């Protein structure tokens, strides 16, 4: 049942005074408030049972899940993302409210409704009060999302004002629906109103700078997920909630203005509209205020020198340095690292450090608006030299970008493998020799035909046991072939699980992994673990030497070196098709890892 259906006969609707200029019977004094409340109860009941609202609730829940299930559950970001679901629910409530408010004028039923005791103004007021029927759905969405986020190990605490803003968004959307339905009864008007709500909030670059917070619920910009903690005024939740409340009041006033005819009432509505507009303008001005310099200075110092605020813990001679509040992740990080370390015959002299870094991107007008250019340039320079943003990284430090570590599921398994692989690459001493620039293109060094690469991959596989199919998916196929240009030779490469997701940043960005190295490591996993460990332990120093080849390791293990797939154009007997031209133009070269 949608909110467009008719309601039952109402008790207490006996002859209220007409104020809509209709031709019905006029009564002097009637229990108008009781009429409105009874009507509102019915409308709220219809809205609660509306299929549209139910569908909006389900769609909103799905949207929230899509936005949060991959990312690290940081409350200062998730709270705002729950609002994306409220936006979808708000669209459904807008359509349902428009259908309900337009009911009296749709299909030529105006005369029939004019004969009812309740006036048009009373009905509109009841529609507005009936929006309370959308509150349970909104609260249910907030509650379910909060439960899911908490179960996934949320970091921080929920922002009550942000969550309340989502509720106000639903109410404001419903009020807009009533206003639209009071003036335009055709159902298309509601659908267009819902689309306008979606497009105003979801269109990239419709607003920029601090103005992104002025749209009903900004969905496409912002760096909330990269921050190591909540930043006051980003987003300006309180002012935004006030803006939404003002919009709801303005829409309600507009809806009543369409139906009320008495001059005194219209005067009151005009005053209410002016107050609502003033609230909206004031809230907008508050949202456009620059973020305080002290807060930005603190943020930039956290980004540029994370060690100054981080808490470090040492476990099994590995230091884990995390921002305050992220301590709950320690166990999740320790597991893959320790699983690799447990397999090592000997560790490098320099101890390993796993450190969180912030991938903040400056200049960002939404963050730095209202501040002098000189100050913004200084912040930008500091951030560019922050750990994780330069390729000149220490060889014994693995960086962990804030917001990148997933909470659960397949992404967490991939992240575990990535951390294990980075640890193993440190353990076999593959050096950070990346060339290029982080702002343009990076060319990681390639351990071309080096036994230590296969050893590192084998250690990571042993530590985390990823599915074999996922490992094989990273190999070149007949249609997708990836590789690197090393010493003017095309080298097929292997994309490990989670490649490109940025869960961790190994020293220097990490080497490029060859397909040959993976295939040898994969063959090693088919051998008894004791046998491989024995071979590796016997000549650990030899296998770490960058001149020791894959073939030598394969021979020591008593297995054949697997054949590496070549791109079609490099296979023997390849004949180019008519019109195909092979261009032997040397591209950018990746260095060989040589230390």
């Amino acid at each position, binding site marked *: 049942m949608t909110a467009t259906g008719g309601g039952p006969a109402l008790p207490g609707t006996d002859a209220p005074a007409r104020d809509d200029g209709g031709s019905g019977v006029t009564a002097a004094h009637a229990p108008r408030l009781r009429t409105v409340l009874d009507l509102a109860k019915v409308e709220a009941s219809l809205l609660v049972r509306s299929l549209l609202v139910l*569908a909006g609730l389900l769609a909103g829940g799905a949207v929230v899940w899509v936005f949060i299930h991959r990312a690290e559950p940081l409350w200062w970001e998730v709270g705002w993302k729950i609002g994306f679901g409220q936006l979808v629910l708000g669209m459904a409530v807008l359509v349902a409210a428009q259908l309900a408010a337009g009911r009296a004028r749709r299909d030529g039923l105006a005369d029939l409704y004019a004969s009812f005791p309740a006036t048009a103004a009373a009905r509109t007021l009841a529609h507005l009060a009936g929006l309370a029927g959308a509150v349970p759905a909104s609260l249910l969405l907030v509650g379910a999302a909060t439960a899911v986020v908490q179960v996934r190990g949320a970091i921080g605490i929920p922002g009550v004002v942000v969550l309340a803003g989502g509720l106000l968004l639903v109410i404001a959307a419903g009020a807009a629906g009533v206003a639209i339905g009071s003036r335009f009864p055709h*159902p*298309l008007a*509601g659908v*267009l109103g819902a*689309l306008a709500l979606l*497009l105003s909030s979801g269109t990239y670059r419709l607003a920029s700078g601090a103005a992104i917070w002025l749209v009903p619920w900004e969905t496409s910009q912002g760096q909330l997920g990269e921050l190591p903690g909540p930043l006051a005024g980003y987003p300006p939740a309180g002012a935004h909630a006030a803006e939404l409340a003002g919009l709801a009041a303005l829409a309600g006033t507009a809806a009543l203005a369409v139906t009320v005819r008495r001059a005194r009432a219209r005067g009151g509505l005009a005053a209410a509209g002016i107050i609502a507009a003033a609230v909206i303008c004031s809230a907008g001005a508050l949202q456009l205020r620059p973020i305080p310099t002290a807060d930005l200075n603190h943020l930039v110092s956290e980004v540029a020198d994370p060690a100054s605020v981080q808490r470090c813990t040492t476990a099994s001679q590995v230091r884990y340095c995390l921002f305050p509040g992220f301590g709950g992740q320690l166990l999740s990080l320790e597991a893959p690292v320790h699983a690799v370390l447990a397999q090592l015959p000997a560790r490098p002299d320099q101890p390993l450090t796993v450190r969180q870094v912030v991938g903040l991107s400056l200049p960002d007008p939404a963050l730095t608006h209202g501040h002098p250019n000189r100050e913004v340039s200084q912040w930008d320079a500091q951030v560019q030299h922050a750990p994780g943003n330069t390729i000149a990284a220490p060889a014994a430090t693995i960086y962990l970008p804030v917001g990148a570590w997933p909470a659960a599921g397949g992404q967490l398994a991939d992240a575990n493998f990535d951390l294990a692989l980075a640890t193993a690459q440190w353990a076999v001493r593959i050096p950070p020799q990346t060339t290029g620039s982080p702002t343009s293109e990076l060319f990681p060094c390639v351990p071309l035909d080096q036994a230590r690469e296969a050893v590192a991959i084998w250690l990571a596989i042993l530590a985390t046991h990823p599915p074999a199919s996922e490992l094989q998916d990273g190999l070149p196929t007949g249609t997708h072939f990836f590789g690197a240009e090393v010493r003017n030779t095309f080298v097929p490469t292997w994309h490990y699980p989670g490649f490109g997701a940025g869960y961790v940043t190994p020293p220097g960005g990490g080497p490029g992994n060859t397909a040959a190295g993976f295939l040898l490591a994969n063959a090693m996993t088919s051998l008894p673990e004791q046998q491989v460990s024995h071979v590796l332990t016997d000549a650990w120093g030899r296998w770490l030497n960058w001149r020791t080849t894959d073939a030598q390791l394969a021979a020591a293990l008593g297995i054949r070196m697997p054949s590496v797939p070549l791109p079609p154009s490099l296979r023997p007997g390849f004949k180019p098709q008519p019109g195909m031209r092979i261009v032997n133009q040397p591209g950018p070269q990746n260095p060989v890892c040589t230390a």
Partner: protein
Amino acid sequence: MIPQSPNISHAEGAPRAPGQPVRRTWRPRLSWLRALPFLARPITRTMPWATLITGCLAGTVFLAVLAHAAQTSGWLLDQGTVRLAFLPPVAALAFVPRVPFRPVTQAVPVPAWVAPAGHLLLAVPVLAATCWAQLRIMMRTIPPHTLGHPPAVYPLIAQLTGWCAVTTAAAACAGRSRYADLGGAIAAPVSFAAIALAWHVPVSARLLVGPPATAHGVTIAWYAVASAALALTCVAMRDQWHRYSRNLHRLSSPDHNPS
């Protein structure tokens, strides 16, 4: 309202005597085709032009505003923006295949689906013109000497065609439900949800979204979707809707007739 068999002549208006069997008269199956020329005007007049044009204008104005912002800010509109701007026309299309008084139109000699089918045919050029205008607006934001070729337009056209067909099918199906009076209001969100699902669910996205699908693959997939949706639309529009046969037998039997 009782739907009549097409074999019963409507010219014979005289009430039949009780107990007298219905005399079936022969009429060519497609005889209603002769009435088509006379239907052109009422179909054109009952076409929801205001609804359709409002939707088309809303999307185009939105795109024009974005194009103005793009030109002043120095960024380019892409096909994704055109997709967003085509949502309002698609929403308006959901209100086109509506039969306002279906029980009445069901009883006339011309099949009930002729009017909505005619409305859909009339909507095609309007939607095509909207698509053309929106593509022109997008292209105007791209400087003439931009490096590289802009992405091909034919997959986008196939995609928008598919969206329109899916929406039409949803509207036709909603028109056969208890929500027939609000077919468009139901069909628009349903089709948007279907489009969003197709876009984000990995299984369908591999076929319908490029990349990873190739431009040719996307085009073929969306035209296949459009064909299936049109077939579903045809089936839904030819549906007889109300089925009273069992109840009518009961009502006409002497046991249920007190007189």
